[in-house]
């Protein structure tokens, strides 16, 4: 064929695929505590005593359901961190995240797993593993992880 080859593409269009996920009993508890009491809670395994935050139904190692809700102080330390320098479109808000920002694993006092969240210091030279931090809550809360605005460094 002597014709010029044209390679076309097709776009996916505007239709969104919205979801309405059920949080389940455990996550609902976590979120209502954030919203109503500005409090972070975990859950403890009856057998190995590990405290998981955020709470979920099953202890992975023991395969047992967990019932004991454990309130946590909201204070903890940085377990590891990164500072993001690239902006990407947040699939939940459709907006580009402003950079740089710090995303860290926070080891809350009394918990055995980490809670990933933002830290209000974005300089990799100043951030250190082990730095003490504390949760800062939004004034208006709705039962969402971002009812915690970020964690602030509470030690020089």
């Amino acid at each position, binding site marked *: 064929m002597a014709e010029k080859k044209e390679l076309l593409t097709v776009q996916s269009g505007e239709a969104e695929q919205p979801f309405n996920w059920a949080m389940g009993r455990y996550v609902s508890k976590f979120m209502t505590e954030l919203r109503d009491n500005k409090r972070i809670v975990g859950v403890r395994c009856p057998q190995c005593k590990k405290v998981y935050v955020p709470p979920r139904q099953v202890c992975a190692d023991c395969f047992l359901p967990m019932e004991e809700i454990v309130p946590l102080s909201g204070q903890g330390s940085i377990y590891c961190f990164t500072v993001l320098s690239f902006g990407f479109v947040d699939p*939940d808000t459709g907006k580009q995240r402003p950079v740089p920002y710090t995303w860290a694993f926070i080891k809350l006092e009394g918990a055995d797993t980490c809670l*990933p969240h933002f830290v209000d210091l974005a300089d990799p030279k100043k951030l250190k593993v082990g730095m003490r931090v504390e949760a800062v809550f939004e004034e208006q809360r709705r039962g969402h992880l971002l009812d915690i605005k970020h964690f602030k460094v509470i030690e020089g």
Partner: protein
Amino acid sequence: MGKRVAIVGTGQTYMRSARKDVNGQELINEAVTAALADAELTMKDIDAVVIGNMDHFEGINYVDSWSVDGSGGYLKPIFKVCTGGTTGTTVAMCGYYHVASGLFDRVLAIGWEKNSESDTTGAIITAFDPVLDRPTFGGAVGGLALTAQRYMHLYGATEEDAALVAVRDRKHALNNPYAHLRLEITVEDVMKSPMISYPIKYLDMCPRTDGACAVVFASEDVAEKIAPQPAWVLGVVNRHNWTITGDPDLGSLESMAEAAAVLYQKLGIKEPLKEFDVMELYFPSSWAGLMWPEDLGLAKRGEGARLIREGITGMDGELPINPSGGVTSSNPIGATALLRVAECAIQIMGKGGQRQVQGAKTALATGFGGCSWSDVMIFGAKKPS
């Protein structure tokens, strides 16, 4: 009792950042055609097909149904398996189990991805729990950066140490005509490249690639008639430990360490550095290439950099790692882990051309997925007893 299984043919496309000249089914077909040619088989000889990719990268639901034009699944048994980044090894393991079960003699396993067609980071973020993780999640790079930072803190590793991995893998890619990125770089190039998510820089990270790979698994009843040197599957195992993001310990890849330990024990492997001739390992970032060989028992904790500095893992070293250039050089996600399997098979079958490790008789491939999903597969030139 099950059957012994070998890989008797592999095929892959040339890896590119965007293949605008083909649609997905055509891309798949390129790899399938190449694999069949390599095995000197036709589609008629194939008893079943298994395929995998990550749905949201191409926005297609039920890819096993959609792909039949390209995969050869028309009027054949076919289904799809998918586990995120490890999809390629999950597909390979599924192909293996199809044959090991005794139900099928020759099975085609296909992994593919057209990352150019979508927003990769956006899609990856949807892997993570929508309620608990997604609101803060820093993308695949963010997650990898956290483990890198933890490792730096624990063992004093430096960014230059990690850069050595990128330098090694990209150098190896020069021998691989199929690789996406083939550029020789220096540690200084890596250090000067833009910081994406501290401490990971642009040249530390794998690319996004369009590509496909296909592998033919055959049972012991037919393998030796098909390939003069089949690559026998000696063992497969996988482990996973990340359901909610804050759960795993990030200073090492625990799931990989556990998987490797289980498989080594099963096969009686005590000194992997000595007992393997070549490894194709899934490193999504150079830091992974520093840390995870420790989980494979190749170095003590914190000593991953020594392996590279001493040249142990270069093409002339005791244990070449990633002669193909690895994931740092090509990353068509649904195919990436399958490429590790294919490259190991290529080494054992003696078809590696410029990237051949001479006399390679035992090989190990890993797959990694964005939630600490670790797969390990071991191959050998000798039929297992």
